């Protein structure tokens, strides 16, 4: 590899911008690169790491340092507890019989102290392992919450975009019920959240309808609800319906749904421009 080519690839590698085959090729080349070439790459990395110093220094909140140092102290304490006891015991054994007779009075005290230390250390170890277990459980919970948070954020991002229309539904047949429709007009998808519908009789189902500007009623979905009258529906809007939509409504229909609405409106919402 000639000098210019090396410099170009080193500059890209130093800033982690090299990709694809060039990255593989360059990293392979580095295994046999000269000392001067390695130094050049390191210099470029140092330059790269220097750039943030151009940012105005930003003072982090004071509690952060305490958080970090607590974490470090916990780790250090956890590592130190056990070995100290072992080391102490070994020293006692190495004294031998002579040491035992010549230090008999002190030995009693030392034995008691060792015993006490062993019990205390045992308790500490037990406590430490319990804390470790709890910490692991918490870490799992945090990971799960983080996953849920990401999923929720994605759901929100999907729901609320610049091209999202929002439709609110309510109705006379079920005054306490309501529904919200989020319409992604780019992908023509609906996400419908329904709340507090009365429980449908065993031989009935709820049915969601598209109502067009020329008063056609087109079935969108037959659905049931949970015990609290809630459900969530995801519906792909037919392309030939979307431009003509004037409203959407929910009725109570015979099991399996109807070709046309046969009951009053449990929920209805007009669709604005």
């Amino acid at each position, binding site marked *: 590899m000639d000098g210019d080519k090396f*410099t*170009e690839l080193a*500059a*890209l590698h*130093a*800033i*982690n*911008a*090299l*990709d*694809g085959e060039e990255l593989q090729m360059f990293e392979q080349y580095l295994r046999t690169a000269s000392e001067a070439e390695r130094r050049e790459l*390191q*210099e*470029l*990395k*140092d*330059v*790269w*790491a*220097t*750039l*943030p*110093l*151009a*940012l*105005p*220094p*930003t*003072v*982090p*909140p004071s509690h*952060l*340092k305490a*958080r*970090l*140092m607590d*974490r*470090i*102290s916990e780790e*250090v304490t956890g590592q130190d507890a056990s070995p100290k006891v072992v080391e102490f015991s070994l020293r006692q054994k190495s004294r031998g019989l002579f040491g035992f007779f010549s230090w008999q009075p002190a030995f009693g005290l030392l034995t008691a102290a060792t015993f006490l230390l062993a019990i205390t250390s045992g308790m500490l170890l037990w406590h430490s392992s319990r804390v470790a277990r709890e910490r692991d459980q918490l870490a799992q919970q945090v990971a799960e919450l*983080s996953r849920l948070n*990401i999923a929720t*954020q*994605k759901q929100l*991002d999907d729901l609320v975009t610049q091209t999202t229309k929002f439709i609110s539904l309510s109705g006379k047949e079920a005054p306490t019920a309501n529904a919200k429709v989020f319409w992604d007009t780019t992908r023509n998808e609906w996400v419908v959240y329904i709340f507090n519908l009365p429980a449908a009789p065993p031989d009935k189902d709820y049915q969601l309808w598209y109502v067009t500007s020329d008063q056609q009623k087109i079935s969108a979905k037959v659905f049931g609800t949970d015990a609290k009258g809630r459900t969530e529906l995801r519906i792909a809007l037919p392309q030939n319906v979307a431009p003509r939509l004037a409203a959407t409504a929910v009725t109570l229909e015979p099991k399996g749904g109807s070709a046309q609405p046969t009951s009053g409106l449990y929920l209805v919402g007009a669709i604005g421009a």
Partner: protein
Amino acid sequence: MKDANLSNLPQFDAADESQLIRRLQARDQAAMNALYERYANVVYAVAIRIVGQTAEAEDVVVDCFWQVWQQAANYDTSRGQLRTWIVTIARSRALDRLRAMRRAPVVSVEDELLRVAEAKATDNPEQETWLSQQSAQIHRALATLPREQRQALALAYYRGLSQSEIAEQLGEPLGTIKTRIRLGMMKLREQLQSLRTP
């Protein structure tokens, strides 16, 4: 305010840093405390610029120093400067967060290097007195780069984009982006030579 900024900027003394890393390798918590005092502002600034949210940036700071503590034993002083290592970790952890958030940062950083350079590249002596000499030198160096070079470097630094992604984002041929990055880095290396020699 000015004094605080000045004192919070890292100073680079090779012997001092070598001693610090040796103490870290010996699991000296006081050394970790000193290291935090020295670099937390820079690490936090990088994290904020990349993730754009204070809560996330705070996690990045803790993760970064925790990684330093965990990996100090394996740190090889011959591989480069301590600040290079720490800032590299900070940037990596921040970019990990950004990717996990699956969204662009709230603060627009596309042209962050450009903005910083234009805002600070000044001969105003008063400003020079409170910006550290090093910081001012970096500002001046950045200001000498053409805007296109700074833009390509900023996208790599704050978004973690590869050369192909930068080319796609800017709608430029890949070869053009390579050239901009190479020229930009060469110029910065030349101008910041004194900073690289502790």
